[in-house]
Structure formats: structure tokens, C-alpha cells
């Protein structure tokens, strides 16, 4: 996922961040840190929610300008619920990702926000889509994003296995986020995870002191 070169270019509150999504056997885990920053040195929120539910089994995680990301997800939520009323059935994850892509691409001069859309639908099961800053749409088995993602590309490439169990996938996500938060100054706080499966959605919060430690003296 594209990363902005300097987060001080984002006006207002920015979520310099680490976000990820990973497919496992039977569902998808989407996760993020919880820090929002303003400028280069002020943490404006330690507990911001970056996992936004756009439909019953579809979540988006946001990176970039908080205002732009919240506006786009609100718009997407509205359009998606309208779409699902018209179709009289739950929307496909691809539909949600397409709506976000449309908004990001048509307004690419003005908006500075990128998204990971992940969820479960009846047609293709668990899916993950990346919608980047300029409006690119890609489907991947796992993906990471935000400023903290650069520090964990090696880890996720080495440790990801297709068809993991729920426990393995959870540990994978928690480790990845903890490693990124340990090295990136604009990511931090607690780890938010959402597990999306056919039966339902579960929100897990791992507070900072319960995160795994990696040679932290």
C-alpha cells in the first residue's frame, strides 16, 4: 500500500498508523493501532477507532487524514446500505471496496486517505481489498498499510501461511502490530482486532501492556 512521504503534509488530525488484514481458514482478521497524531509531535488521541464498520460483515480500516477517511467511510456506509436495500441481500465485499475506490479516485486531488476493506460474503467467502491513496483497488490474501507497515514487511512476508487457524492468525496479527508499534513513533496505543466470520463479528482489544515484547529492555 502506498505510504505518504511526510505525514506533516496531512492537514489536521492524521492517523500515521499501522493497519493490517489477514485471511484465515473461515474468515478474515482486520487490525490496527490506536494512535492519532497532529503535526509531527502531538498525539491527539491514544484511543482512536480506525476500524469502521461499513456493513454487517464488512469493515474498513483507515490511514491518512482522519477527516478525509471518516468522510469517505460515512459516504460508503450510506451508499452500501442503499445498495443492499435495492439488491435485497447483503452486499459483496468487492462492492464495498469499489465504492471506496470510486470515491478515492474521483477526488484524488483533494483526499489524502487510504483504506483496507475486508469482510465476508456468501459468494466468495473471506476477502481483503486494498484501496490506496490514488484509488488503486487490489485483492490480496493479506495486506499491511500505514506508516508503520514499512517496519514489518519482512516479518509478514516470512511468517504468513495461507489457511491459518483463527488462533494462529490472531497471534500473527498481534505480533505484526506490536513490532510495528515498537519501531514507528506515530503508531501506538492499544491493538484493535476485528474477527469477521460467517456467524458474526468479534472485536478484540489488546492493551499496550499485554502486547508481546521483542527484546524491549
Amino acid at each position: 500500500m502506498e505510504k505518504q512521504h511526510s505525514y506533516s503534509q496531512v492537514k489536521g488530525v492524521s492517523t500515521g498508523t499501522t493497519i493490517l488484514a489477514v485471511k484465515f481458514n473461515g474468515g478474515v482478521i482486520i487490525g490496527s493501532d490506536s494512535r492519532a497524531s497532529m503535526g509531527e509531535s502531538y498525539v491527539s488521541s491514544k484511543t482512536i477507532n480506525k476500524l469502521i464498520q461499513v456493513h454487517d460483515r464488512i469493515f474498513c480500516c483507515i490511514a491518512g487524514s482522519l477527516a478525509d477517511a471518516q468522510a469517505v467511510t460515512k459516504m460508503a456506509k450510506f451508499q452500501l446500505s442503499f445498495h443492499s436495500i435495492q439488491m435485497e441481500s447483503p452486499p459483496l465485499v468487492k462492492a464495498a471496496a469499489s465504492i471506496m475506490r470510486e470515491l478515492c479516485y474521483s477526488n484524488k486531488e483533494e483526499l489524502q486517505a487510504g483504506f483496507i476493506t475486508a469482510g465476508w460474503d456468501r459468494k466468495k467467502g473471506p476477502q481483503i481489498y486494498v484501496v490506496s491513496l490514488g484509488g488503486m483497488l487490489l485483492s490480496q490474501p493479506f495486506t499491511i498499510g500505514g506508516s508503520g507497515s514499512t517496519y514489518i514487511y519482512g516479518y509478514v512476508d516470512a511468517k504468513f501461511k495461507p489457511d491459518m487457524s483463527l488462533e494462529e492468525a490472531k497471534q500473527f496479527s498481534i505480533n505484526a502490530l506490536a513490532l510495528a508499534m515498537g519501531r514507528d513513533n506515530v503508531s501506538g496505543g492499544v491493538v484493535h482486532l476485528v474477527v469477521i466470520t460467517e456467524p458474526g463479528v468479534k472485536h478484540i482489544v489488546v492493551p499496550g501492556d499485554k502486547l508481546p515484547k521483542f527484546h524491549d529492555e
Partner: protein
Amino acid sequence: MALSCVLEPALSGFNFENSTRNIVLENGSEEGKIKAPKPMKTGTTIAGVVYKDGVVLGADTRATSDEVVADKMCAKIHYIAPNIYCCGAGTAADTEKTTEILSSNLTIFSMNSGRNPRVVMAVNILQDMLFRYRGMIGAHLILGGVDCTGSHLYTVGPYGSMDKVPYLAMGSGNLPAMGILEDRFKANMDLEEAKSLVSDAIHAGIMSDLGSGNNIDLCVITKEGVDYIRPHKESPFNYKRQAKYKYKPGTTPVLTKTVTQVELELLDETVQMMETAGSS
């Protein structure tokens, strides 16, 4: 009389007209370049805290115009709805007008729908409006209120970002105030604790920030009603004028007096008849 919903139905998609217009104005040709006017800001400390039975909002009362205190008793806690109040920091005019527009729209909404507005609705309307103006409206707001779903405190930034928080301080004095809040905030405090916490937070802002000062206003919102305490604490440094500044006529001696006759020439005279007959 217009009966349709005052909140204008949003056009589909985003509307960045104002943004492009601003860019064109600022980057015009050498003669055509227009500099955006510098707005007056209220250096401010505002804070809000959620406690057991509701929300406590607090603010200082100083409005500055560069280095001069323009208003010593400025009201920064604005009425939105009977159960929702909003503290505003940033550009004085923007916070005033934004909250007034929000308040009138919500009043019309509750008359139309017969329901009291929810805090989250006020937040959504504010967010949509501020996002549309892309940060040009310099309003940093803390909204607090109690509705049928409970007590809520939200912050809305000038670019349209929002966050739901249990306590927060904003304005130029927000850093010292946040220090006090971070240290002493506990969930489910009782009223006196909450009031003293907010008051101390604003006090810290007043002491450590040049743009904040004078008195402290508090607003306590609960399910039962609103207690707007203005002022909660008066500044002990209120200046008492040492002497009268009125001068009796004759205080300044008249040295010379010259009278110049101004010659006026009558150029044109018209007479218009007026109907003044009363009804019989």
C-alpha cells in the same frame, strides 16, 4: 412559509467547489492575487468531562485580538439544544456562527420530527459541514450532551474529523489542561469532583497560556436539565478603575473661536402631495 426540511439534502458525492475557488483566488496573476484575510482567533482553553450523571463543560472567558484582550467576559459555551452544549475554540466568528447554524437546524428538526436531537446527530451535521469547507472554517469544538442513549462528549476538528472521548481539552491552553485531566480523570466521578476537575484544568490553561484568562465558566448537563454557571470562578485579578474617566464640560479651556459661514445655494425645489385623509 417554507415547510421543507431546512437541512439541505446533500448532493451526491463530495463537493469541493469552495476549495478550488480558494486556490484560484490565492494563485491568481500578480495583480489578481488576493490574500486571504487574517481571522481573529480566541486563544482559549476549553475542556469537557463525562461524569456519573452527565457531562461537565468548561471554558475561560478571554477573547484576544493580537495582544489586546478584546473581551473579558466572552461566552465560549454555546447553546445547541436544551440537552446539548458546545464549547468552541479557534476563530471566534467561525465557532459562533457554526454553532448558531447547527442550533437553528436542530430546533427545526425537533419541531418537524417531534423528537429531541441526539448528540451524535449534532456531531454528524457538524462533521459534514466542516468537511465540506476543507478546514477553512477554523472551529475546534467540544460537544457534550445527554440524550436518551446516555451522556456523550465528542470533539470535532476544523477539517471534519471527530472522536468520541471521555474527557478532552482544546484551544491554545489545551496542553496544560490535558495534563490536569490525564492525571485526575476517573470514570464515573460525582458532580463536585467533576466540576473541580474541569475548573482546575481551565485554571491550568489560564495560568500557562497567554491567550486564555479572566473567569471560568462551567456548564453541567444532566438528564434533568442544564446548570450554566457563569462565572464559576472569577479572576482574582479583576482590575478596579482607580479614578473616574468622565470630564465635566469646561475642563478643557477654549483658546480661540472662529465661525465660518457656509454658503448654500437653493438649486431645486419639488413638492409632493401626500394622501393623509383618514377613513371616515
